[in-house]
């Protein structure tokens, strides 16, 4: 069994680890974006309430 040909598998494993972490950061980032939009919305509601 020639072992060396498996180099790309090693690379795949480490790449995968990074991809998962990156994906995680991206998902969290989109959550923060959603939260910001919601907060703006709520701020709008409160202002409307204050004026009304």
């Amino acid at each position, binding site marked *: 069994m020639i*072992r*060396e040909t*498996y180099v790309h*598998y090693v690379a795949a*494993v*480490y790449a*995968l680890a990074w991809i*998962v972490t990156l994906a995680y950061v991206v998902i969290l980032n989109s959550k*923060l974006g959603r939260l910001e939009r*919601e907060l703006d919305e709520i701020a709008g509601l409160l202002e409307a309430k204050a004026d009304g």
Partner: protein
Amino acid sequence: MRDRTTAARLDRATCAALVTAVLMPVALGLIFFYVPNDADQGFSQRIFYFHVPIAMTTYALFAWGALNAARYLWTGDLSLDLRSYVPMHLGVIFGTLTLVTGSFWAKVSWGTWWYWGSTELNTFLIIFLFYCAYFMLRFSVDPGEKRARYSAVYALLGVGLIPISVLAVHLGQDVIHPITFTDHGAQMDGSMLFTFLMALAAMLSLAVAMYLVELRGKRLDEQVTRLRRLAEGTR
């Protein structure tokens, strides 16, 4: 009024991320440049330095989730429910990573995509199925005190399942994989062990950083929903 605990957690989350940022490159450097090739498997044995730490981190996350679940049942403090759910959630992410890297590891070591002879892989499969079931339960009960209680009970059942599965897989080896194949243990000399421990430390600190960040995200979610309810004037 700035809530002091979130400020403190902010620092902890940042410093956990910083520790990871330091440890990870060091570990990678060691894995690829410092540690010698494994006598038996040569270069590709280096998958080991990521696959096993990820698996260990998964178990650590599940244990952490179960611990918080037990504390929740004992104290009834609802914030513990979140601190039990987030590690479980991360555990499944790391678990998926373990299974995938595990199949790579099997391909490298034994030439098949899934090596039934390896007790670790099989045990991990059972535990992984269990935690998918945990999420099924969590999604089928409405949020609230009852969901927290039921999730905690099931998380604790996992604590019973892990040793039982390890034992079952060992005992059932003759059934799972008739030709017994001695698993070569991790005979690691000094440099390998050091690299392995560094990789493990890096992986664990990554998990802690992700845990703290996600926890903060979930807390923001709750505060935003509460704000929304107040803004819309519904009690």
